[in-house]
């Protein structure tokens, strides 16, 4: 599909994909929301191709990207996050013979999602401390200590989980 260069075919494919969006009862706006992140780069590539290779090639490229993004986004839009994560865990179960431990993957996913607001908070704390002292923006000098701080916190957390017998729980 990546090789498809026929503008008519691609336009038809986009039309069919939009019908799938309608069939999935997604509001019309989601189509634009799905395309928004690639719109600028798509326009940029269109302009570049227009200069380099002419209109048919430029149109085909832009349409191909739009079709691919719309189709793949449809999967994400119509699948619950919990289902996606379940798929991930069951795929991990299939990889168990390779030494991959599914419960540890689930733990890693959960920890990552929990860590994100924590890291944002730490980052903001450093910035506020700087602001109080009259500094502006983020100082590179703060990056090292910040990383060590979060490494320490992570060590403590890992030890706490280990101490509660996560590994011996089989």
């Amino acid at each position: 599909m990546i090789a498809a260069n026929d503008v008519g075919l691609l336009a038809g494919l986009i039309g069919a994909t939009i019908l799938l969006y309608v069939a999935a009862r997604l509001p019309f706006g989601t189509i634009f929301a799905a395309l928004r992140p690639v719109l600028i780069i798509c326009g940029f590539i269109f302009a570049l191709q227009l200069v380099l290779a002419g209109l048919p090639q430029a149109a085909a490229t832009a349409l191909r990207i739009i079709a691919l993004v719309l189709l793949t986004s449809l999967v994400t839009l119509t699948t619950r996050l919990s289902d996606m994560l379940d798929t991930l865990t069951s795929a991990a179960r299939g990889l168990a013979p390779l030494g991959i431990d599914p419960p540890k993957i689930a733990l890693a996913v959960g920890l990552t999602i929990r860590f994100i607001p924590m890291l944002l908070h730490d980052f903001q704390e450093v910035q506020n401390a700087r602001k109080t002292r009259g500094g502006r923006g983020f100082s590179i000098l703060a990056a090292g200590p910040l990383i060590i701080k979060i490494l320490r916190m992570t060590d403590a957390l890992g030890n706490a989980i280990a101490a509660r017998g996560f590994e011996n729980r089989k």
Partner: protein
Amino acid sequence: MRIQDVAYIALFAALTAVLGLIPRIDLGFVPVPITAQSLGPMLAGSILGARRGALSQVLFVLLVAVGLPLLAGGRGGLGVFASPSAGFVIAFPLAAALIGLATERVWSRLGFLSAFAINIVGGIGIVYAIGIAGLALIAGLSLRDAGAASIVFLPGDLLKAALAASVAIFVKRGYPVIETRQVRSDDL
């Protein structure tokens, strides 16, 4: 793998996500803003080493793929991997693996310059190679044009490699994770 390692892996996956949230710098003349996100694989590789660093980036890419909006600009989902910039994200695990491998090899002698060089080769070389190949493939550009379109990010990425190197040295002195692992390897 110890639970502590799982926690480190989760931490650097989260760190890569948070780096995408830090205010973006818009260059004005380039359509894509510069973000700090590509610092993620650099820091993961040079602080955690090859195995854990690469796994943290695999986790990050997987979480993006299942639909969490963790990429800069709140992007996420399978659509990301069909977009022209897909290669730059897919390259993260390999970049972290290579940076980690090189960092572990020179660990006892690691200084700013060697860390800087490692981060340039792994964090810029590998990411650009895969990213530009992906851009050329999806956007139908020649490799040369795709490369020319990406070159505007080079100054910012060099800056990030320098930042990653200085943080790596700071962490090596103050709270080394790679060395700790070697000391404790007998209790695995």
